[in-house]
């Protein structure tokens, strides 16, 4: 019975076919009034969450009846609130908490979080949000844990790692409410390596990535491993705050970095390095940064969470529109947000950029903004955490993905805005020329010659 009081139970796969956390609905086509099929599924999910053992659940149900059991559960899981908050279309119910602080790192990945401020999306959803520039990923993580920030811009793998207790003292349940950007990163090399365009020639190189738990780290590792180099033995990888990447490149402390923009472009702008490859050529559509919330926000202030998610999804859609990109660059480059030269930010967002090799490239898809947190992304992140032994135990890939990548909520908010929502949060990804089937992660992992687990 003790399991009944767990707030964030690890779930088995629900009857709807996809697994999902207890506090969320499973049926993608649920009615908007919070009753009917959706309400039933929430109830059933809650019961399943509290009593994962099917025999026990059936036994209890026949003994007490669903109503009694559910009312007993109400005290533990505020089901009513979640149900109502989710069922709200526009106009939204009043947020429980209006004054919010959201931390961001000054990189173009943060564009939606930032843009929701000047565009008034937060205000439109009844929120008074202060977006606060923050010094680094560890700082933003610690402030989010300390609840100095109500929500935060994080690297997509961070909430996964935090929820699993990897890289932090205790597991702290955080979730990716929405992906911020896809693509939009690059490998930048020092100018002296202009002729070393094949990663096979990179033995002994020193690389910087923004954080251990970052898609940057995993992509760089996968990329060099694909070329036959062991990322732990044949090259060096260091965690370096993005702004210092350019300075380190200039000082010849590193040979290159896989980092976020605008720092790739800034290296070109300052004549320090060139863009070797855009990450969209490694994995088109890869997630980079996330809009992360503590799981307790979802249960404690469901209306605030719903309003915030809508504002973010709206800003993401706005930022993704190529027609808006110049204006977006104009809005975010200034000292209050990114604090970078306009042309640098504009090159990143429009995709018309100097590559540092004397050419001007036109890649409008250089960076994209798509809020949908595919579970397949989370599973790939988990395979890489496991591959490089950051995660030292086996986990239920799908369950962790559902817990940390809240595809249903983001999908709901997207649908309200008239965006297309994928049928299933699992899809096959093409990464470095290989197909990754998220339903077969073990087979995928076993296919690598270079790995640490």
């Amino acid at each position, binding site marked *: 019975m003790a399991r009944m009081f767990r707030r964030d139970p690890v779930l088995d796969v629900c009857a709807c076919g996809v697994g999902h956390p207890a506090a969320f609905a499973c049926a993608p086509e649920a009615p908007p009034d919070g009753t009917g099929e959706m309400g039933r599924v929430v109830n059933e999910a809650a019961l399943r969450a509290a009593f994962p053992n099917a025999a026990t659940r059936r036994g209890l149900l026949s003994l007490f009846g669903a109503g009694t059991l559910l009312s007993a559960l109400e005290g533990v899981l505020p089901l009513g609130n979640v149900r109502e908050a989710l069922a709200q279309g526009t106009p939204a119910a009043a947020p429980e908490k209006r004054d919010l602080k959201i931390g961001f790192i000054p990189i173009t990945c943060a564009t939606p979080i930032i843009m929701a401020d000047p565009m008034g999306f937060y205000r439109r959803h009844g929120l008074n949000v202060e*977006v606060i520039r923050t*010094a680094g990923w560890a700082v933003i993580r610690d402030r989010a844990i300390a609840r100095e920030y109500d929500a935060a811009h994080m690297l997509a793998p961070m909430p996964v790692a935090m929820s699993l207790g990897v890289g932090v003292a205790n597991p702290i349940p955080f979730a990716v409410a929405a992906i911020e950007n896809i693509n939009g990163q690059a490998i930048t090399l020092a100018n002296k390596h202009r002729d070393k365009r094949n990663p096979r020639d990179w033995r002994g190189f020193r690389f910087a990535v923004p954080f251990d738990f970052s898609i940057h780290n995993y992509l760089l590792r996968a990329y060099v491993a694909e070329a036959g180099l062991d990322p732990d033995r044949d090259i060096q990888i260091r965690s370096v705050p993005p702004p210092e990447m350019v300075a380190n490149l200039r000082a010849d402390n590193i040979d290159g970095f896989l980092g976020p923009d605008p720092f790739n472009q800034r290296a070109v*702008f300052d004549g320090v390095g060139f863009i070797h490859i855009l990450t969209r050529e490694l994995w088109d559509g890869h997630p980079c940064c996330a809009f992360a919330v503590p799981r307790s926000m979802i249960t404690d202030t469901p209306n605030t969470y719903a309003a915030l998610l809508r504002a973010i999804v709206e800003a993401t859609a706005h930022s993704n529109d190529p027609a808006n990109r110049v204006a977006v660059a104009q809005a975010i480059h200034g000292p209050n*947000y990114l*604090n970078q030269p306009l042309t640098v930010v504009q*090159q990143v967002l429009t995709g018309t950029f100097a590559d540092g090799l*004397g*050419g001007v490239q036109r890649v409008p898809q250089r960076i994209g903004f798509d809020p949908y947190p595919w579970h397949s992304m989370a599973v790939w992140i988990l395979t890489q955490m496991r591959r490089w032994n950051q995660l030292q135990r086996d986990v239920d890939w799908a369950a962790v993905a559902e817990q940390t990548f809240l595809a249903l909520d983001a999908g709901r908010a997207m649908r309200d805005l008239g965006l297309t929502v994928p049928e299933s949060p699992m899809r096959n990804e093409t990464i470095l020329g290989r197909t990754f089937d998220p339903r077969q992660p073990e087979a995928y992992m076993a296919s690598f010659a270079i790995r640490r687990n």
Partner: protein
Amino acid sequence: MAAKGEAWRAALLSALLLAVLLGAWEWAVKGGGGPGGPTVDAELAALLSPAAAAGGQTAMPAPSDIGARLVELLRDPFHQRGTNDQGIGIQIAWSLWRVMAGFLLAAAIAIPLGFVIGMSPLLNAALNPFIQVLRPVSPLAWMPLALYTIKDSNISSIFVIFICSIWPMLLNTAFGVASVRKEWLNVARTLEAGRWRTAMRVILPAAAPTILTGMRISIGIAWLVIVAAEMLVGGTGIGYWVWNQWNNLSIADIVIAILMIGLVGLLLDRALGLVARAVAWQE
């Protein structure tokens, strides 16, 4: 008269050194002449910094660039355009506030505690191992612990100021109190001055110059540390401003920040120097 002439000559020499230094700097940055590298087409040139377009790297800013930027910054030092864009004056005020809060808190604890330790050889011996172990710890090493336990970055940075400025004051107070002349204490005893009266009228003024020396060391350390602490936790303050301009690779702003940090540090030290002079005595 000779001393006055000497001072003038020293000032003149200082000015001359500065002029030579700045002149050499200016020449080293700008003296290289016009762009000599490959010229690129107009579209590409618009996407690059002038130096990069000329085939080079962006250079260190020259003193004239820094001067121009300084004028720009000081024209409106207290502007507030959003959470993340506030004037340099406001940033310095934030740092000063944190330093003062941590420093005064440390003084409020270190001076009375130092008094007790200085008067009691037993306590002195008992606490000494702790002090000796904790004192050499780099203040920033406390930061993660503070953030983890206090869970508030602003209070954490104040705590770090507190913890790093407490030791010089504690040790100096204890030393100053312990080395008060026995004969003054004997005078107080023969005059039947009570403990409190002895502490306030004899020990405190006797130890005041030593205590003030400790306070001067402390405030110097506190000002050093706040910059680093703010670079680490961000938000507000001159240290954050440095981080922020570093983020923008704006070396001119960083040079200005260095100048400002130096000046404020000097002013803090001078202010305590005046207090020290007021309590100094000479036999």
